[in-house]
């Protein structure tokens, strides 16, 4: 990692395009951190990403690496196809909660279960952002969304899915961590987790998964600053922030 005294420069792996995300959106932050990781590991020129359907569908406008679209939810399967065809490339999928944990749950679980040596970045912000703030599989109990107008009722709508815990029941994953974009410390932790995930792949170790609890100020209906609080308090209470799997072994907190 860069030492503070070397200053900070915009990551070279980001394009000059202005990102379309709302002010304070976690996608922007993770894009930036991901670009820093591509820079630091010097893997930009051998990385192929897979973008989701959802707010991050335009990810290919923002990264100076090759990126493919995928059908909604299929990013892990598409990433599997790319990685199997080009085993020496670094392949990541970047997916939101609807894409990864609802429509794409099957592809997510089975790619992890095969131990595909890819990196899956999971942006969990508890809502479908692009379509207008509908209920996601990770929406908190009682949380109001466009499709849970009186709050998510677990009795009829289910409970928020904990993806890290679910994937941690599998034997093949090598690295699983949940981090929270809840402030400066969260930024540092997220960067570190992304770095570890990509290092896992660079060193040929196996499947890596990073869940980022991420702010969506627009659909949380609060300021960016308050949305960080929502992430750090409400979300982190439901989704414990920790390392679940390290070097192929489950870590018990």
């Amino acid at each position, binding site marked *: 990692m860069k030492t503070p005294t070397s200053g900070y420069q915009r990551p070279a792996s980001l394009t000059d395009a202005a*990102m379309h995300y709302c*002010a304070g*959106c976690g996608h922007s932050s993770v894009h930036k951190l991901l670009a820093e990781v591509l820079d630091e590991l010097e893997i930009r020129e051998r990385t192929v990403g897979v973008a989701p359907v959802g707010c991050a569908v335009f990810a290919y406008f923002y990264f100076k690496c090759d990126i493919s679209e995928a059908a909604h939810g299929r990013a892990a399967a598409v990433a599997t196809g790319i990685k199997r065809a080009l085993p020496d490339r670094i392949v990541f999928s970047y997916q939101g909660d609807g894409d990864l944990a609802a429509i794409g749950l099957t592809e997510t679980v089975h790619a992890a279960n095969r131990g595909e040596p890819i990196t899956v970045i999971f942006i969990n912000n508890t809502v479908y952002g692009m379509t207008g703030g509908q209920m996601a599989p990770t929406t908190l109990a009682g949380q109001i969304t466009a499709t849970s107008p009186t709050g998510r009722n677990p009795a009829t709508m289910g409970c928020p899915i904990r993806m890290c815990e679910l994937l941690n029941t599998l034997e093949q994953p090598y690295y699983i961590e949940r981090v929270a974009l809840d402030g400066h410390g969260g930024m540092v932790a997220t*960067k570190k987790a992304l770095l570890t995930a990509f290092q896992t792949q660079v060193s040929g170790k196996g499947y890596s998964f990073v869940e980022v609890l991420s702010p969506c100020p627009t659909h949380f209906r609060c300021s*960016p*600053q308050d949305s960080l609080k929502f992430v750090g308090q409400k979300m982190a209470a439901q989704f414990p922030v920790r390392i679940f799997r390290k070097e192929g072994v489950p870590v018990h907190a």
Partner: protein
Amino acid sequence: MKKHFRVAIDRERCKGCELCIPVCPLHLLAMSTTMNRKGYHVSETVRAAECLGCIKCARMCPEAAIEILNVP
């Protein structure tokens, strides 16, 4: 020898989310009363020469709009 830094904010990238402002230990950042071309009130530096180079503001900025430059 003490290093010197300067905070450089790309006004046109800034979306005015204000996440950079509270993290500065020296309170060198504040919201501008003027707007950029996209209509956001942007973050700007006050007493920019006092920057310690901790890069917390740059880390917080989702848009990578803040750079911390070494000043010779």
